[in-house]
């Protein structure tokens, strides 16, 4: 007993040392690439922007005041939140039936279909958005077809519709995958049980299937909403950069505005982060509740 206890102790001590050794690189990595930039951004967001974009070490809340009072920023927020919500909703409306369809297929078809959902990831996102440009352009594939049929071409590219299309296109797999996972766990006998108890298809769907796949719905929505909120490529390449979204503003303030304004850009990023953290917090609350 004693010998075994000693061995255990030695092993535990060694384990702890090994654990530290194992964790150290990861923790350093997190510190360097996650915590540090975060601290810098938080710090910058309360500093003053000097002439020609230099940073003046003078604490201020002016950046935040600007963001909450100047309509250009407030509007960008609202616009970003609105288009992100629209993207999420459309992805959900398209993704749920799609995931449901895939889950109901025989096993070998299922694997193939999920594989097809993932295929776009094999090509760079920018390249795929350029491909959409070609499809939507004034002399692009669709309008080429319309003209050939003798119809008037449509203004497709550089519209908000095109932005929305690009966003939905890019994010749909992130909606489908968690929904698929949730639906694969769903016991479809439950629908028969509901029907047996007098529920029509609609009632069975809302009262039995939706609540039980809620973790997938929430996960998919969060996974779509978060990247969409900071997206700037699609709005620029398909939307024609006609209006500002959050991502475009941040990008501009950091790189292209004259003068560049890192403190204001940082404050913008901080606010976005707060919105997202609140969302993620809510997400964990919902999913944990379900596991109980």
């Amino acid at each position: 007993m004693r010998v075994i206890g000693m061995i255990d102790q030695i092993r535990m001590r060694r384990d702890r040392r090994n654990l530290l050794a194992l964790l150290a690189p990861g923790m350093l990595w997190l510190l360097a690439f996650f915590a540090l930039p975060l601290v810098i951004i938080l710090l910058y967001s309360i500093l003053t922007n000097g002439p020609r974009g230099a940073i003046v070490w003078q604490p201020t809340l002016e950046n935040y005041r600007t963001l909450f009072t100047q309509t250009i920023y407030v509007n960008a927020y609202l616009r970003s939140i609105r288009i992100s919500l629209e993207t999420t909703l459309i992805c959900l409306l398209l993704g749920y039936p799609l995931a449901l369809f895939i889950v109901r297929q025989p096993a070998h078809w299922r694997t193939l279909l999920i594989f097809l959902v993932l295929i776009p990831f094999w090509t760079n996102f920018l390249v795929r958005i350029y491909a959409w440009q070609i499809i939507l352009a004034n002399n692009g594939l669709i309008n080429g077809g319309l003209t050939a049929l003798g119809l008037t071409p449509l203004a497709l590219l550089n519209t908000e519709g095109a932005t929305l299309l690009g966003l939905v296109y890019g994010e749909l797999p992130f909606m489908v995958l968690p929904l698929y996972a949730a639906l694969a766990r769903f016991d479809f006998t439950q629908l028969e049980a509901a029907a047996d108890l007098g529920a029509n298809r609609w009632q069975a769907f809302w009262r039995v299937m939706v609540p039980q796949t809620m973790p997938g719905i929430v996960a998919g929505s969060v996974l779509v909403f978060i990247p969409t909120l900071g997206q700037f490529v699609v709005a620029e390449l398909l939307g024609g950069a006609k209006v500002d979204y959050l991502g475009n503003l941040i990008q501009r303030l950091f790189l292209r505005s004259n003068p560049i304004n890192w403190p204001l850009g940082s404050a913008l990023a901080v606010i976005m982060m707060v919105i997202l953290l609140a969302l993620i917090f809510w997400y964990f609350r919902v999913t944990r509740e379900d596991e109980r």
Partner: protein
Amino acid sequence: MSDTPAIELHDVVKQFGATYAVDHVSLQVGDGEFFSLLGPSGCGKTTTLRMIAGFEYPSHGEVLIHGRAMAATPPHRRPVNTVFQSYALFPHMSVAQNVAFGLQMKGVPKHELGPRVQAALEMVRLDGFDQRRPREMSGGQQQRVALARALVNQPEVLLLDEPLGALDQKLRKEMQFELKRLQHRVGITFIFVTHDQEEALTMSDRIAVMNQGKVLQVGSPTEIYERPTCRFVADFIGETNFIEGQVVAHDGGYATIQSHDGLELRGVTPRPVSVGAHATLSLRPEKARLLTPDQAQSVQETFRLAVKVELVSYIGSDTRITVRLNAQRTLDVWEQNTRSTLDRNAYWQPGEDAVLVCPPENALVLVE
């Protein structure tokens, strides 16, 4: 109760591709009856039940519930409820919400829900469990929730698909008793699917024995056990010795067959036979008696087969004896241990000579 059968199946067929899951089945289940569908796994019991519930539609034939044709009625409009094999309780709802679900779908006013749910839970002895989640309950309790969830709707017919299959032996026995008690109390027609012949015999008013999509025999437990009409039923229900041969004579409900090894045996014929037909004699091990050659002298019974005791298993209530008839054939005989004794001579010993006797009314001659 009315004279119209609760359930009627008219020549019902269900095909899945080339498989006949249900093959020309006709049945009538009376109002208030405890009716069992009994048969080996894959024989079409579940499919039959699902056609009554409306989850499957017959490829051919008709399902009627209290005289009403169900061809165009979806499951949620049928006056039946199902207890699923897996229970299929809603995991995201409490026990009370599960039980209330059917009433809510029917639009029962809110203030009536509470008392009716309570009454249903009391009926299955689960009062006090209403706020639990299904996964926080044992298998037996979940099974009761499933029962309450179905019965609270006061269906015309309750369909149960191997509801006791997942329970352990002791709980199974308890639930068999519970189910009978419940059925007696609510007076609802039960259609009970099981592959367990003992369960079917204990619980049912009538049993339909199925195999390969066909109903082979419908009858009371006694009829099914004592007068099986075919070899499959005799074999599936209980245990029996089979001796194959040809019919050599028949008269007044009895027939004599001659076996390939030259035995002439007589038994009851549940179905008409003709001379020359291939037939099987079924002899249940508890219906035969084993006597010493001396005792056998004075007994007037048609069967008299000289045998040698080969194997003796004492199992408490019974002694199960395997006797050898000839080089090719052994038979099983069960003797009830009606006398309490430690005397070894009171029991058969391997190697002893004996005579197997059986009156012809205890044996059956079956033709396919």
